[in-house]
């Protein structure tokens, strides 16, 4: 069966791997909260509610099976953030990892930024596969030798050892956010990055931890006048002076840091007028943007609100150039979704490597892909039933009308506890990582 992907409509998606415990009892700490490929796609990082980061590395393609891409295996696991307590405000600070962003690789080590609600940390992940042997003052087991017993000197030599991957925190960027951090984004200058909370965006230098510049501040003088918050922010992929931030009112503002030090005045504002026919109690909630992502080309950006994905051309502010309905059948269920809090779920979205396909998650462990070139969309399910190695994913259909066809799923039987909020697409290849509650599914397109 055909499905969208990589510019061609003949892509078949196959199950590749699933990571994480497969039992029904999900520990809250194991809930995946962010997924991110690095710039080459060789490394895949996940963060969870327990503050841990797990990094998977793709094995090199084996010569025995040239048809198969390498598998992703655990490369490093470390505790990035711990729960903290703000004594001044009597508030607990969750250790949940909200976002991970990789830095472009400059040397042998890998660097990533991980953040919880209040603190951003720069982690260095480095390999050690050699160790020195032949110390003069220490025995091999580490005990110090009596200096009087040293009669000769030798130069220690490096001998190979089992690969050890070490993660060490190199910088801690703390105490700059009063509200909860929702986004971090590394600038294309590879020297600075931004962090955004509900009301403010700060600009940091990667080397400097004791101060940051505030570049956006939408906090009103009187908090009673608050009408919107910042929901996501991202730097432009090429223009180091440009960034965008989205709001809970469904608007996106593009700012140019050359214009002024404080970018409260936007250079462009992207907003689509609301359709008055769709007005409901929940209009404000479903128009809140949960994610914003630039295309790799930098020409477009994509936003995700509760029911749809929109593609915007940066040259046109009045309306998106494309709108894709993710699960329009939920529009009549908004009241129940409000009652069970699902309406507040923040879905993310992502582009494929050449910006021809976009992907986002939904409920019942469904995820959707929209092919922009062929105007096709497809729904897949990440489930254990479809977890046979290299089994081709079958497109799913949701029946919205009265008559349910065979193999269709009715809206009422959707499991709203099974949601896919985080997805990631390999930057260069047709490999996707899809996070269910506590499992990470990896799918690839079938190589013939």
């Amino acid at each position, binding site marked *: 069966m055909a499905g969208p992907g990589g510019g061609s409509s003949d892509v078949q998606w196959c199950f590749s791997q699933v990571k994480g415990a497969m039992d029904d009892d999900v520990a809250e700490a194991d809930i995946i909260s962010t997924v991110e490929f690095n710039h080459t796609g060789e490394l895949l990082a996940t963060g969870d509610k327990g503050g841990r980061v797990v990094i998977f590395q793709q094995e090199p393609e084996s010569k025995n099976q040239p048809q198969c891409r390498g598998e992703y295996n655990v490369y490093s696991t470390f505790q990035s953030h711990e729960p903290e307590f703000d004594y001044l405000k009597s*508030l607990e600070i969750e250790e949940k990892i909200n976002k991970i962003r990789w830095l472009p690789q400059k040397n042998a080590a890998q660097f990533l930024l991980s953040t919880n609600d209040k603190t951003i940390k720069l982690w260095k992940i480095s390999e050690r596969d050699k160790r020195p042997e032949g110390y003069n003052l220490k025995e091999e087991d580490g005990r110090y030798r009596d200096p009087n017993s040293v009669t000769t000197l030798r130069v220690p030599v490096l001998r190979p050892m089992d690969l050890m991957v070490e993660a060490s925190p190199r910088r801690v960027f703390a105490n700059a956010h009063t509200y909860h951090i929702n986004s971090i984004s590394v600038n294309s200058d590879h020297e600075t990055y931004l962090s955004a909370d509900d009301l403010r965006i700060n600009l940091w230098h990667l080397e400097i931890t004791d101060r940051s510049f505030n570049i956006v501040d939408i906090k009103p003088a009187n*908090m*009673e006048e*608050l009408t919107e918050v910042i929901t996501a922010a991202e730097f432009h992929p090429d223009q180091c002076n440009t960034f965008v931030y989205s709001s*809970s009112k469904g608007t996106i503002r593009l700012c140019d840091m050359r214009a002024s030090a404080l970018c409260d005045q936007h250079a462009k504002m992207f907003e689509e007028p609301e359709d008055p026919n769709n007005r409901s109690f929940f*209009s404000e909630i479903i128009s809140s943007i949960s994610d914003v992502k630039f295309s790799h080309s930098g020409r477009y950006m994509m936003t995700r609100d509760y029911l749809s994905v929109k593609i915007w051309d940066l040259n046109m502010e009045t309306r998106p150039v494309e709108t894709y309905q993710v699960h329009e059948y939920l529009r009549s269920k908004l009241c129940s979704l409000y009652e069970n809090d699902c309406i507040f779920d923040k879905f993310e979205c992502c582009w494929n490597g050449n910006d021809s396909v976009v992907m986002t998650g939904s409920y019942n462990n469904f995820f959707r892909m929209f092919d922009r070139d062929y105007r096709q969309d497809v729904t897949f399910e990440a489930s254990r039933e479809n977890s046979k190695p290299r089994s081709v994913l079958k497109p799913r259909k949701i029946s919205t009308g009265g008559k349910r066809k065979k193999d269709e799923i009715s809206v009422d039987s959707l499991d709203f506890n099974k949601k896919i909020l985080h997805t990631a697409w390999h930057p260069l290849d047709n490999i996707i990582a899809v996070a269910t509650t506590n499992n990470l599914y990896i799918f690839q397109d079938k190589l013939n």
Partner: protein
Amino acid sequence: MEVDRGAMECAVDAQSLISMSLMKIHSSRTQRGGIKLHKNLLVSYVLRNARQLYIKEKYAEIYRMQQYEEVMAVCSGIQELDPLEPLEPQGAEDAEPEQPVRAAGCGEESRAAGGREPEPPYYRSCCMEDQFSQNCNKTTVLDLDTHVVTTVENGFLHQDCCCAAAAAAPQCAPGAAARKRKVDSAGCSPDAEEPSDYTAGRKRLKREECSGADCSPDASNISNLISIFGSGFSGLLSRQADLEQVCSKQALASLGAWTRAIVAF
């Protein structure tokens, strides 16, 4: 605000949405990680939308039910107080919407919110203790957030007629009142006033409700609503709700049913 009620799958009525929203706001205080500003802002929008619809429907219903003479009887009663301007629909809601709503009671503060002398005295008089004293109910209310005890005149009505509407999303700002006094430690210990201990707070709320000779349970229940929500609630009031000023007495009586339901949580 037009609501496409046909699109509502479940039998949603504004009443249940209001209670649901208030419960969400309240439970968010005890959630791990602190109050989520974004979520509470969105909930407040639902609350505003539901309340607008509820009030509109309620007053439409009242108008339909009432005889015209009954309305006129109320209005002529108003006119006796000041023969100048009967039934001026502008009234206190004329204040510039952009003015920040201070959690204003009456007296000096209300003048800042929209104080202009030519206002129909009906709206002013409810705030003046001496004029309406036989109808004003004093309710003492404890704000669960700030532990500030406020004395509210005539409950709900007092808030609405004196505060200019502003497109404000409420934060947990201190409750509004004509007079405020900080709870002293002898009276009640703020430490015990855990936001999560809703029951205790509610009990204290009820214990401190005093009343005049005829304490209207509806007015006190509605002021509970305000105290839970904070002063920003007054900013949610629609500026179109002018007509309700006239029929507020009748409206309060009919609103009692759903406010009691909320207090019952």
